[in-house]
């Protein structure tokens, strides 16, 4: 359903994704792993349409066989893609409730609010965080929970989680991961991660290894534990 074909991406003239091709199927869980700087976040940004990430003319990103690489991020969101950020920025004077209301123009605002509160409860997000400037003064775990909350309320068919498990403590990780498992349903998850710990809760169907912007290897969940034991260098050499 999400097809990347010959995807090459440059940022400020530096090539960071090289001819990446892969098809993500509906309902599956994918894990993308790779050393720091291998292009994992860039891949996520490119799929979402960050304006600084320039794709080559041969590159194609399509969703359900329709090109989306030439449309704005909000349109891509409208077609069913969500990206949870690795380091979400803080937004002064903007609350998550307000953001979710504005991002759901076709839904009853009251219903959005109730759902937000309900999911926040499940994620053990304090009420105070819902009415405060988004991410301002929030801990790592709180930020990732707020990202998860937005993912759930906006409810897109493809959800990309960029290091949702980084900078969170054990309890927060459990809260996030069990929440994601519970609400998975028929959605596609793409998890970008360095660790296996979240994979205890979310069993991947495929593991993709990205090194230096290259898709070096694709395997099943065993590949993830091998990497943890042996490291990337040994694996690809």
């Amino acid at each position, binding site marked *: 359903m999400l097809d990347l074909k010959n995807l090459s991406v440059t940022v400020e003239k530096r090539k960071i994704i090289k001819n990446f091709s892969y098809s993500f199927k509906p309902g599956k869980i994918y894990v993308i792993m790779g050393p720091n700087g291998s292009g994992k976040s860039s891949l996520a940004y490119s799929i979402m349409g960050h*304006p600084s990430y320039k794709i080559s003319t041969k590159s194609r990103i399509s969703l359900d066989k329709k090109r989306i690489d030439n449309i704005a*991020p*909000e349109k891509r*969101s409208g077609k069913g893609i969500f990206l949870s950020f690795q380091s979400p920025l803080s937004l002064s*004077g903007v609350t998550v409730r307000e953001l979710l209301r*504005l991002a759901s123009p076709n839904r009853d605002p009251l219903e959005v609010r109730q759902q937000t509160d309900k999911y926040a409860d499940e994620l053990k997000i304090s009420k105070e965080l819902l009415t405060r400037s988004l991410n301002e003064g929030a801990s790592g775990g709180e930020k990732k929970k707020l990202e998860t909350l937005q993912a759930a309320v*906006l409810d897109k068919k493809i959800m990309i989680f960029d290091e949702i498990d980084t900078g969170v403590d054990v309890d927060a990780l459990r809260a996030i991961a069990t929440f994601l498992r519970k609400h998975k349903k028929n959605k596609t998850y793409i998890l970008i991660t360095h660790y296996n710990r979240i994979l205890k809760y979310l069993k991947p169907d495929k593991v993709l290894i990205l090194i230096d912007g290259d898709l070096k290897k694709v395997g099943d969940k065993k590949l993830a534990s091998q990497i943890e034991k042996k490291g990337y260098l040994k694996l690809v050499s």
Partner: protein
Amino acid sequence: MAGQVAPTNLDFEYRFGFSMPEKNVFKAKKGISEDIVAMISDMKDEPKWMKEFRLRAYKIFKEKKMPEWGADLSKINFDDIFYFIRPTEAQVNSWEDLPEEIKTTYDKIGVPEAEKKFLAGVSAQYESEVVYESINKELDKQGVIFCDMDTGLKKYPELVKEYFGTLIPAHDNKFAALNSAVWSGGSFVYVPKGVHVNLPLQAYFRINAERFGQFERTLIIAEEGSYVHYIEGCTAPIYTTQSLHSAVVEIFVKKGARVRYTTVQNWSKNIYNLVTKRAKAEDNAVMEWIDCNLGSGVTMKYPSVYLTGKGARGEVLSIAFAGKDQHQDAGAKMLHMAPNTSSRIVSKSISKEGGRTSYRGLVYVHPKAKKSNVYVSCDALILDEESRSDTYPYMKIKQSDTSIQHEATVEKLGEEKLFYLTSRGLSRADAEGLLVNGFIEPITKEIPLEYSVELNRLINLEMIGSVG
């Protein structure tokens, strides 16, 4: 909670740019002279001292140089302005009794509607004079005075004489002198000892004529332990020629009293808005200026608080928004003259499409003002490469036992934040509006809900079609 309204995707137009046919009962000939000044006083049948005050001020105006700092005022032509227009024969206290053109104007702006909902008193000035006025009967019984300055002078001459021009004398600056010479309209507010006016009083200023100068004069006296919130709003039609708005506002906040003065300035871009505002706060008094400058081509305005009494507190919260062809040179002045006084200045400015904002502030702490507290924070948000923001914060601290905190930030509306919001499905314009509203939220939350909604809406309108 942050911003109360959703950014709406409307095409920007200045909603108040319409003009009505001029049906004045009197219009003085163009330009300014001793004769014009005397004539204004005669037409108003003023006491002799006021006529003399005006004529003295006119001399000062002629002698004073234009300010050599701040915004570019070189295009003002004092001979090409009408200084006095009497819009109606008499003031009314029912909207129905206003001439059709004027009533329609205020209906379009929404003043009568606001009055019904949440105001304790309303005054509406059209050109040079206040055409409509009303005050809640309860307040009237409590001895609260809220009328136009001309009526104030007629009915309470002694009270006016005691205070008028004592805080902002004519020689303060060229535009204060001009106002002192040709002033007309504005508000006179008197709140007796211990009286709390719970709902705001509002004055609405409208310029309709072309090449016109509006010079309202406002005097507020809050006696010991009293409280009042005064709100002013202003709009004008769009003309290709320049008009001038030059007001003087003097406020006396007595012992333990509190005055809040909120301005939502939305003049059209052909207006020069050059205003002098000053308050004097006595022992433990509180003076708060909330100053929102969205409109006008050029604004120069620095609301001041003279903290003359022990424990007095002054606050200026200001928002400046400068779009294409706009320069907002705004700020604040705090003069600490007594011990234990505190001041707080919070300025937020936004510039886009080549607009320019300047924060200009002065904080002075007198040697006598021991244990004073100063807080200054100015944040600028610049939306594109063509726009500009400058900060001129002056501090003169003559007392070492003073606590001072000064923060300043300049940021560009970040591509990363916009990407974050658009990735959640918001359009770029909505995302910009949301970020800008979030930026000014610390100030909008201080404004009555009805106004903050209007303010957010105005800023959203201004945002549509900006960067990208």
